[in-house]
């Protein structure tokens, strides 16, 4: 059970109720049968030879951006991880249209990479060096890299966008 201390006549439970070590072990054992390997682990752009240094801006309170950073590292990117409270100002600075926003914003090779984009799509985009502003996966679709949840896989699109706010589909994921 939780660790308790008595302050001012009341019991303060300092850890989660019922969150004992044995409970956690039980959950961990459950996961052995339902493994959480991600469909995004596989490398699809092995020949990529472009820039690997990226800067990721994220809110210190974001619970999912870290998962995407792990995904990027796994695929060979070196990540400069910057936590900032004012993501809105940052997105404005990079002229990201409101409708295209997600949680974290990545800058690589002068391009804006918004949200939970599969990083191999970023590699393909950078290899093409298009005259565009960048890529985005707007919102936070469940199932994207860093957003894997049980068996939920929301269809999503990777969109490219330019300085005039025009948008085109770069890649579509209906089922994955």
């Amino acid at each position: 059970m939780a660790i308790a201390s008595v302050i001012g006549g009341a019991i303060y439970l300092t850890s989660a109720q019922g969150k004992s070590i044995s409970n956690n072990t039980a959950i961990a054992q459950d996961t052995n049968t339902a493994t959480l390997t991600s469909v995004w682990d596989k490398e699809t752009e092995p020949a990529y030879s472009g820039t690997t240094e990226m800067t990721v801006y994220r809110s210190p309170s974001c619970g999912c951006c870290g998962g995407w950073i792990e995904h990027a590292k796994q695929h060979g990117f070196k990540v400069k991880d910057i936590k900032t409270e004012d993501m809105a100002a940052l997105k404005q600075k990079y002229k990201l249209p409101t409708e295209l926003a997600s949680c974290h914003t990545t800058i690589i090779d002068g391009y804006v990479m918004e949200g939970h984009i599969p990083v191999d799509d970023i590699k393909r985009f950078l290899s093409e060096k298009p005259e565009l502003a960048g890529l985005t996966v707007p919102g936070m679709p469940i199932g994207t890299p860093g957003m894997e949840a049980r068996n939920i896989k929301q269809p999503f699109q990777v969109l490219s966008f330019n300085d005039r706010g025009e948008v085109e589909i770069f890649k579509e994921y209906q089922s994955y």
Partner: protein
Amino acid sequence: MVKINRRQFIALGAAGVGTALIGNWLRQDISSQPLASSSANVFDVYQSSDGLLELDIIAKENPVNLTGRQAYLLTYNGQVPAPRLEANPGDKIRIHFANNLSQPTNIHYHGLHIPIMGNADNVFLHIKPGEKLTYEFQIPSNHPAGIFWYHPHLHGLVAEQLFGGLAGLFIVRGDLDEIPEVKAAKEEFLVLQDFAVDNNGRLINSAHMSLMMGREGDIITANGQVNPSLSLPEQGLLRLRILNASTSRFYRLALEDHSFYQIATDGGALNEPIEVNELLLTPGQRAEVLIKGDKEPRQYRLLNLPYDRGGMGMMGGGMMGRNNRDEPIVLATINYEAPGQSLSIPTQLASITALPEPQTVRSFELNHGMNPAVGMAFLINGEAYNHDRLDTQVQLDTVEDWEITNTGMMDHPFHVHGLAFQVISRNGQPESLLAWRDTVLVPRGETVRIRIPFRDFAGKTVYHCHVLDHEDLGMMGNLMINA
């Protein structure tokens, strides 16, 4: 969720599609034709008689007129919103429920203080498609009067079914209704819901909704209508009884040129009315206000003002081209009608007393993140909901303080089933207003401390975030109240 056809270009100018759309809407509204005569007429109402409220409720998909078009919504008895139920303290309730949906479901009686086991407010019931169940319970004789409501609560399907339209008012009549000024006021109900349907009137599949933010629809309705008309007697009082039955959308209400005199929160009457210019209602919350008909007799718009509930720094949870976060939206129009009885705001409404000091203090942390067991999830104290785990065990007839901290980047309204509580402090600042609530907003980065008396009913129930996609994605815990 954004959905763009291949090779389609969309100009995303600074003004954006959403702004233009809302602008149109407002202009249209100013020169608008008379709308529905009275929103009160839209509900079927079932009132108890001789101490019994007995009726059939059938959950089914049904064609419903939504903004002049046919939409196939999820309904109780074919209606959106569902029939309004009314009972008195001490009444017996018997609801013969049939599930004609294609999914399992059940009914949660949100805010009622009734048994949490058996065929009452039991969220663990699992009523399969085609099955029937009779709900039977008694409203305690000391139950406060107020606005309560009923909606599905089968974990994993709550958001989808509520968003389909399954929600109705459950009114308990009592002391508040007998206060002379309140009794003489014109009574209107407002059930606020939002919907997303495709061109064929079919509900948009959950896979295409913004589940992480909590789904929002672009069709915003009050009593199933866009911008219905209500009337306010000149010199008199309008008693507006409001429920936020949306899955995720917050409503920040304001009435042009008028203030609200709030007389009740979720759990019933306040001690005395408080004058406010705005009223924020999170999903699940209710409020009651009196409005004075003391301005120039004409039309006034009831507005939903922008509110940022967090998430992506700059974006609401809406759909592409419907980003209405930055513009007020007209929810209803209030028309002055012929002078009625001249009424003033009452001074004394109830006598809520502060609760005794708690025996136990617990802390709860709300956030989303990667959980080793389930992946991305919404979490309470680092855990996603597990049906088999008891998260919190309390003793009946004790009082506890729960300190709820939101360390995430989205707002979370926290709801406890079957019980009313008082807010003790927000971010360490003592709360001066004595009020009974069952749902309280814990804004991102903030801490709210609530005091809960566990009274009358033992058993297992739940607490959760009332952005119901967050609840379905794990932000819920099992509460065992031991006798």
